[in-house]
């Protein structure tokens, strides 16, 4: 019933701690122009614009999409602004795809961004509310106890997280847009980096980045005419659950498992580990790779760490994960989810450059947010479904 939708253009900015040579509109425009170029279309071809970013307080502008809209060609067009916590980049891509899949629009531009250098994210996440005591320092303070819970229940070796960090940082060296480029990255370098939120070390955490990611999506009749390869959307899915309730499994939330099962069913995938060629997974702290290997049903519960340990998630493994260097290497929060979706699409288009997986036909893009409670995912392929 739904229209087919293809990703025909992708644009990313260079990611860096500070892109102070650009304003916010300039940052979005850098990504949007590259996406239009890639799609071989102009601003006039775009029917609607979908903007995503994390909390407004990160840049101190309320509903910034209102002032940014015309910089990305949205003047006198429909414009939507999505915000679903850390998963927002993924959800934004899904909303944009929906506009095409519903037959409402023919060709849509979506942009997600964060300019973390314009404010202080840890502050915005730790605003002191009356009646309470602030004890959780930013996202690391929130997730570290959950990582400890995962280590306890899975019995994973203590160095699993270090191995993930080394792999993703090595992958980033193949991605010229990645923020962190650590030429001399090694196991010892990660292991000896300061423990920030025990058990999470400095080099096991994501950086704060400025950056934007954009995609042009179009309906089948338009996308088919593209001179470049198209990433066809086979399935999108999202799930949310409350932050806390009695007995909630915060380490392996049901929303993640339900989301994965529904996604694969829609995409006609029976055995995800066999059928998916590579995945871009939202891993802001290294330990979340093994956790989401389980959460995305690639590994049995409590065994996700084995995939990391055995090298299955390396570039030459059977399921490469975060070929681009992942969130650990570039983290413009509001865009981080969309980058996962876009990198998955680049892989099946065969346009991922030095971090291309040979013969990638089917790829997963994944994002999560809040207290491990918002999940958004898609499956893209070089073939129409």
């Amino acid at each position, binding site marked *: 019933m739904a229209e087919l939708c293809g990703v025909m253009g992708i644009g990313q900015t260079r990611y860096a701690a500070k892109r102070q040579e650009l304003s916010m509109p300039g940052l979005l425009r850098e990504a949007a122009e590259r996406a239009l170029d890639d799609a071989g279309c102009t601003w006039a071809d775009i029917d609607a614009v979908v903007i995503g970013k994390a909390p407004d307080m990160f840049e101190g502008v309320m509903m910034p999409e209102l002032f940014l809209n015309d910089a990305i060609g949205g003047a006198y067009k429909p414009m939507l602004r999505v915000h679903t916590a850390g998963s927002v980049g993924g959800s934004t891509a899904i909303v944009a795809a929906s506009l095409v899949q519903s037959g409402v629009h023919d060709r849509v531009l979506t942009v997600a961004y964060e300019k973390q250098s314009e404010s202080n994210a840890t502050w915005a996440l730790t*605003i002191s509310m009356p009646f309470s005591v602030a004890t959780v320092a930013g996202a690391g303070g929130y997730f*570290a106890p959950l990582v400890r819970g995962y280590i*306890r229940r899975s019995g994973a070796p203590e160095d699993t997280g270090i191995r993930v960090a080394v792999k993703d940082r090595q992958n980033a060296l193949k991605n010229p847009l990645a923020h962190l480029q650590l030429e001399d990255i090694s196991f010892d370098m990660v292991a000896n980096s300061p423990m920030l939120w025990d058990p999470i070390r400095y080099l096991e955490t994501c950086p704060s980045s400025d950056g934007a990611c954009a995609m042009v999506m179009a309906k089948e009749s338009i996308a088919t005419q593209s001179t470049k390869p198209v990433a066809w959307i086979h399935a999108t899915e999202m799930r949310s659950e409350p932050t806390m309730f*009695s007995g909630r499994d915060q380490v392996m939330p049901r929303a993640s498992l339900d989301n994965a099962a529904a996604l694969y069913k829609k995409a006609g995938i029976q055995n995800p580990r066999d059928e998916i060629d590579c995945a871009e997974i939202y891993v802001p702290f290294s330990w979340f790779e093994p956790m989401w290997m389980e959460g995305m049903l690639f590994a049995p519960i409590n065994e996700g760490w084995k995939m990391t340990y055995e090298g299955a998630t390396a570039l030459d493994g059977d399921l490469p994960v975060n070929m681009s260097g992942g969130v650990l290497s570039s983290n413009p929060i509001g865009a981080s989810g969309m980058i996962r979706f876009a990198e998955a699409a680049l892989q099946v288009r065969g346009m991922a450059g030095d971090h291309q997986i040979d013969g990638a036909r089917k790829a997963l893009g994944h994002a999560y947010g809040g207290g491990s409670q918002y999940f958004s995912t898609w499956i893209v392929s070089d073939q129409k479904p």
Partner: protein
Amino acid sequence: MSEEVSEPIEVLRLPVELEYQYTAGKSASRFLRGLQQGKLLGQRCPVDGRVYFPTRGCCPQHGVPMAEEGSIELPDVGTLVTYSIVRVPSANIPLELPYVTIQVLLDGADTVMMHVLGECELEDVHMGMRLEAKWKPEEEWETSVGNILYFVPLDEPDAPYESYKEHI
């Protein structure tokens, strides 16, 4: 263009100060009034009877308001469910680094609360430890969780993992 005019401005400082008056809400008000008197009041979900501490506006699992009556007074002792040793400063947190952020399951509660651990060597911190609240002097009590300065270890055997594992 002269040099000064073409020189890019990379940073504009624009301090934003906004004042908000938050409403604690009905459920949190009962909880905070209790704290003012040194009482730890949990509330039952009317659907499954589980005890929420701290209380929220409603049971998030069932989407119903917490039972108005029948606050459950809980003891100020509990079990350390999970923790992290924090070595990152944060402008909003006045604690000296490093400090231990903890999730505590009070005896009789069915949800954890976040707080910090004190009077404990870092290498001795572990899951399952039994803890007790260390209160501020009574004359300083307010409508705040801050009436509890921190939790301290109790000289008791650890709680078995099975007794708290569903709360991680």
